[in-house]
């Protein structure tokens, strides 16, 4: 697996690294490098609905998107071979996440010796109107 990640990283194939993770298929998470930046998407599927009265996504799937986007930003930006381990995440839900694709991008705020601090934002139709934001810490080694 570490060998797989390294060889896929060398090829810039982050999509295939993401697809190695079984849970990504359950909720429809996809990662790709677009215009030099890592983009993570949560593809809409009806099984991700949490509030069927309003047809909005389950907050847990949005938290999963934010966490996945943070992990892939770290894999993309840093010279690491293993999937970083999450220490904690704080998610703010800003707007209802409608039954449609959701996109997230992350920023590495600080990289320490062992810890990384990451901020993440998720949006749907308008990047200026985020549906959720998060900050998280990861263990790098």
């Amino acid at each position, binding site marked *: *697996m*570490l060998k797989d990640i390294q060889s896929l990283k060398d090829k810039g194939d982050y999509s295939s690294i993401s697809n*190695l*993770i*079984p*849970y*990504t*298929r*359950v*909720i429809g998470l996809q990662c790709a490098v677009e215009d030099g930046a890592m983009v993570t998407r949560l593809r809409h599927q*009806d*099984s*991700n*609905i*949490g*509030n*069927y*009265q*309003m047809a909005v*996504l*389950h*907050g*847990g*799937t949005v*938290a*999963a*998107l934010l*966490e*996945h986007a943070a992990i892939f930003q770290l894999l993309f930006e840093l010279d690491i071979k293993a*999937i970083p*381990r*999450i*220490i*904690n*995440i*704080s*998610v*703010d*839900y800003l707007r*209802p996440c409608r039954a449609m694709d959701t996109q997230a991008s992350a920023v590495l705020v600080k990289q320490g010796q062992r810890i990384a601090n990451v901020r993440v934002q998720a949006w749907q139709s308008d990047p200026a109107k985020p549906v959720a934001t998060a900050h998280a810490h990861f263990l790098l080694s």
Partner: protein
Amino acid sequence: MPETADLKQLADMFSQIPHCREMGIEITALATGRTSMRLDYHERLAGNPETGVVHGGVISTLLDTVAGLTAMSAVSPTTPVATLDLRIDYLKPARPGDAIFADADCFRLSSSVAFVRATAHHGDNTDPIAHCIATFMLNAAGFTSAGQGTS
């Protein structure tokens, strides 16, 4: 004393949530302001294919679910509930193969906000996998146990 939730109605509503069905999340105990749930392990939930440890999103989903239902159990059936924020500390990796349990309690209810804490564990809640604090907005757009949500 505010009107409290109809727990049977709340459990019926829960059983219809598409993503909870997809994940196999079950209620094991439901009382006013206090809820417990269970999620069985499955390989498809792995976040690390090498170790089989579940993705953090699985824990987030279980904790958001148990905390949200706990907030709803503490208010009237017609009060809409929406998640404001969710903070999770991942205390140690979940054990691959083992069911994950979660317990939540609403420790403060104001007129507009419900404050809930929750833990995820493998059967002993004094030895948690994850700890969570969540706050829920009441009476805004949100989910109700009595049927139609408001937006």
